[in-house]
């Protein structure tokens, strides 16, 4: 269980609250989508949920962030690393730059945790297997396509076996093929029992992937509910986010006084 209780946060040196009074709960096995216009607090929410803010970034946080009922206040990210992981949108900045093969790159997390080699190897194999990228194991991490590199980034976090995974626009810099690969990977992940929070602009992706969607506006939670009801809500576009194509089209058809001839997939 990943929980934010009445969380407000501001960055160091800034007076403005980027998040105000956020309450959010994500249980194991849930895939929760996070939407919001740019600068609405999506990325900040991801940093706070993973403990990087204020842990690494600094700033002032009021309220509580709890991981499996344990408060994270005062804990450094390496303490939290095996409980909650964060994946960013740029595959290149997540590459350590010190490994020659994907296997070593993915194993870095467990190795950093001080695990014996046998455990590091087992976890690495599990992560590569779950994301179906065993065939990339001997490749040079610096020479992969965007989609492949992002899968390696996700595997690198996964190998640490966090119970919760936060992804901040993981497909933003990927082509449709890469987006599809990451989408498949996240679906596979959820079946392992992890709790996922995925921030995205691509609401079509979230529509397919998430059981629940949370919307952020001006640093506060504006909507929180089952994916179909949030994404299908007529007021959704006020959030500054585009709705999934199927809802848009269904609405445009009924606005024109017509009926939909068949189901929209």
């Amino acid at each position, binding site marked *: 269980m990943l929980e934010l209780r009445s969380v407000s946060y501001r960055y160091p040196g800034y007076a403005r609250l980027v998040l105000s009074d956020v309450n959010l709960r994500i249980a194991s096995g849930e895939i929760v989508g996070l939407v919001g216009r740019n600068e609405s607090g999506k990325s900040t929410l991801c940093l706070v949920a993973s403990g*990087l803010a204020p842990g690494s970034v600094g700033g002032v946080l009021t309220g509580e962030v709890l991981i499996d009922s*344990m408060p994270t206040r005062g804990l450094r990210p390496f303490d939290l690393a095996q409980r909650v992981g964060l994946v960013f949108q740029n595959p290149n*900045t997540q590459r350590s730059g010190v490994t020659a093969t994907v296997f070593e790159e993915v194993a870095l997390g467990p190795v950093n945790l001080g695990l014996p080699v046998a455990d590091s190897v087992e*976890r690495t194999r599990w992560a590569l297997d779950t994301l179906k990228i065993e065939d990339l194991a001997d490749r040079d991490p610096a020479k992969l396509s965007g989609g492949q590199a992002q899968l390696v980034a996700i595997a690198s976090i996964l190998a640490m076996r966090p119970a919760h995974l936060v992804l901040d626009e993981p497909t933003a810099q990927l082509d449709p093929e890469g987006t599809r690969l990451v989408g498949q990977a996240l679906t596979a992940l959820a079946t392992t029992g992890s709790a996922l929070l995925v921030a995205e602009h691509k609401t079509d992706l979230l529509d397919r992937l998430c059981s629940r969607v949370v919307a952020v506006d001006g640093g506060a939670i504006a909507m929180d509910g089952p994916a179909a009801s949030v994404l299908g809500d007529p007021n959704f576009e006020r959030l500054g986010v585009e709705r999934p194509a199927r809802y848009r089209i269904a609405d445009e058809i009924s606005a024109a006084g017509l009926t939909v001839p068949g189901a929209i997939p």
Partner: protein
Amino acid sequence: MNPSAVAEPSAPPLTDADRAYLASLAPPATSPYQRLNPLTKATLATIATLSAFVLGGYLAPLAILGILVIPGALAAGALRRLVRGAALVSLPISISVALVSIFTRAGTTVLFTVGPFDATREGVDFAVQIILRLFVTAMALGLFGLTTEPHAFVVDLERRGLSPRVAFAAAATLETIPLMVERALAIQAAQRARGLDTEGSLGARIGGVMPLVGPVILSSLTEVEERSLALEVRAFGRPGRRDLLWTVPDDGRQRLLRWGLVVAFMAILVTRVSGILTPLP
């Protein structure tokens, strides 16, 4: 619940196949010399360099070259490359040293005169000796550089006790250069697309420095922030030792060699300082 406690190690022990796979991840060695432990190679390079400077004259540096450097270079199949590289690197300094010492070294035998300056035999002597030492240094350090994979060196140091954080910083620094070059090229392309003229007059090219250098620095800084957050998430900041996937082998004979070199150097130092033996010519 102790947040730093790692889950109990629970994996079954490694099979031989596993061990073979992990060993295959280490950088391949293409010659017997490269297979030597990095510390051994580093010791050879350091002792060779220091000895060349401690011992004066012509014979000693040449002897060091012949005993410590050239056999290794031959074993690594890198002699020609090494000589070329070392000559190239030591050339600029050698020229300035030569020019300065030939004309300014106090001496009695004048060989020729250029303007108000006298070139003395003592000056030439001194210059040649310095150049020789510089060349030996370049050769010794060059041999180390050509035959040692930097990543393997860092892994070996960590096994010997270097802090993982320092080890990472060292390894990451080595990787930075190709990344910076790639970034600089991308920036140059973007600025040229905005009309920055890199093919025109010298004045135009000088004016183009800021738009090229500025983004290199600024984008590196912004990227550094996200990069360091990504590293934190992978527990790079965690204190404590790590159990690495592969290590570089070391053996008793190499240990003996390293200590032998150190002792030999101590002996040289003592004889030189105390003046027990006359210096070689």
